[in-house]
């Protein structure tokens, strides 16, 4: 049993306890403040709010994760990140980006959120150093918002040898089908390796637009804008957009080499073509329309239309069937 302290000392303890209590309180406040800051920092790290980043035409508000994360298993290693914010034209936007790690092996990657495709890249090529390892950037511009969703990164052999499950930011497109104009678009900036081993830088924006003209006439426009020579007239690359293509474009390998879209469906073939400096657009007059939010566009070599080098989501307004 501990002996009791003398009364004088007990009073000194009491006097001291006020000081001690205030010290404890100050320390406690400090601990709470530091913890709160730490938790907030962790939250920022996880969700990455309010960044000054602009990727393609997307002004980034949120990044998930705040710094690019690394998926590494079985000798493969690459970085990935989902971003979301407001496009320069005021619509919503999301960006999904990937890049191989320096010295990493060629890596087929498929990034999905449930049944929705985010990015399917035939391979993230080898790269020597940080500067050499370019991002595969896929930006989507749309009316609507974005939400959190589970996503799965499959990579390695058959793009499903290894999987990494992660939260991601996904687009929730809500175009106003009754408006005078509406538009959804996808922009891609990446490097693609062709069958002969050559690397081609590819940058393009694809849009699906609807336009109501005077008198209520409804026109759907399918448009690609690119400065990439391989995607322009006579180029080696083409696009297969499943919303406006038949047979996935496979049957159209020897089609007109000036058309950037392969295997066009009849309604698109019947449309009016407008060719600009860096644009190719097909305008189709329709009576009524519907919206396909799950359509996908793929970059292919014209001579190998069945082998997609890159597939990304590209919703489309379509004539009502």
């Amino acid at each position, binding site marked *: 049993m501990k002996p009791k302290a003398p009364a004088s000392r007990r009073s000194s303890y009491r006097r001291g306890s006020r000081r001690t209590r205030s010290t404890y309180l100050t320390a406690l406040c400090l601990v709470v403040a530091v913890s709160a800051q730490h938790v907030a920092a962790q939250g920022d790290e996880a969700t990455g709010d309010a960044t000054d980043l602009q990727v393609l035409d997307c002004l980034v508000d949120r990044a998930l994760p705040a710094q690019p994360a690394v998926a590494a298993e079985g000798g493969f290693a690459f970085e990935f990140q989902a971003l979301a914010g407001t496009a320069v034209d005021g619509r919503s936007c999301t960006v999904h980006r990937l890049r191989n790690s320096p010295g990493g092996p*060629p890596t087929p990657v498929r990034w999905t959120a449930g049944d929705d495709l985010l990015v399917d890249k*035939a*391979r993230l090529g080898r790269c020597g150093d940080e500067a050499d390892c370019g991002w595969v950037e896929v930006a989507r511009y749309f009316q609507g918002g974005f939400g959190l969703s589970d996503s799965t990164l499959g990579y*390695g*052999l*058959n793009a*499903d*040898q290894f999987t990494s499950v992660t939260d991601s930011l996904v687009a929730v497109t809500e175009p106003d089908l009754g408006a005078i104009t509406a538009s959804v678009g996808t922009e891609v900036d990446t490097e693609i390796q062709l069958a002969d081993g050559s690397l081609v830088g590819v940058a393009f924006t694809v849009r699906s637009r609807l336009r109501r003209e005077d008198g209520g006439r409804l026109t759907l426009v399918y448009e690609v804008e690119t400065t990439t020579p391989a995607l322009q007239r006579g180029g080696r690359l083409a696009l297969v957009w499943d919303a406006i293509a038949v047979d996935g474009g496979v049957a159209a390998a020897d089609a007109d080499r000036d058309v950037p879209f392969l295997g066009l469906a009849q309604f698109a073939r019947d449309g009016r073509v407008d060719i600009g400096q860096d644009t190719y657009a097909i305008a189709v007059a329709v009576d009524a329309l519907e919206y396909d939010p799950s359509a996908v566009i793929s970059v292919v070599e014209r001579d190998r239309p069945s*082998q997609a080098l890159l597939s990304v989501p590209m919703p489309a307004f379509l004539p009502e069937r």
Partner: protein
Amino acid sequence: MTVDDKRSKGLVRLVSRSYGLIKKSLGLYGTAVALVQLAPAVVALLVVAFTPSALLSPTLRRWMLLGALIGSLVGMLWFAGRAGLRSIHVVLRGGTILRSDGLGRLTRTGLVTAAAAFGLLRLHLALVDTTFIEQFSALTPVFDFYLSGRTFAGILFNAVAAVLTGAVLAGVVAGAPAALLGRREARRRREEDAARKGPLSAVEEALTALEKATKALERARDDLALSVIERERDAGG
């Protein structure tokens, strides 16, 4: 030779024999220790051999499952053909068919095919293993080709794996039952021979074996006597 001499020679012989035994047991112990030390490495190699990382791909597993099913079917037909399925009516009528040669060949061919296909399959699966490719960098172009993400490359890799899996299964499904059936037939033939020769044939076989054993023991006794004489001569010299 005095009694002391005899005693000392006996002692020397005892010490020499003990030393020999200790040396022998130490040798055995050393070998055992070396083998035990190697055991984890052997287990690790077996694990690596039977669980290639490529098998983590569900797409590849589906292809290999298809190959295994087709290979098993081929193996069954192969075995049935060699096991005399076409002569089943002879057996059903109570007759016998000669098939031991065919079964022996099928056992050898089937199991060798299975072993070779397994080796090739393991090598094939290793071609997309980053660790393996780091060790054998000459195979990097093959790795790059298979992981190019192209549909053709993917289908080719999966198809080769499926064919090799099929070959393994065909070999095992045909070869293993052929080996068992061959053994059974050989045993039955021996029993038939014994029955044909009558009850004395077993006694005769036992006598022959005993004769052989007696000769072996005599040879051992002679060798032992010679070695004792030589040792005494060495000790005396």
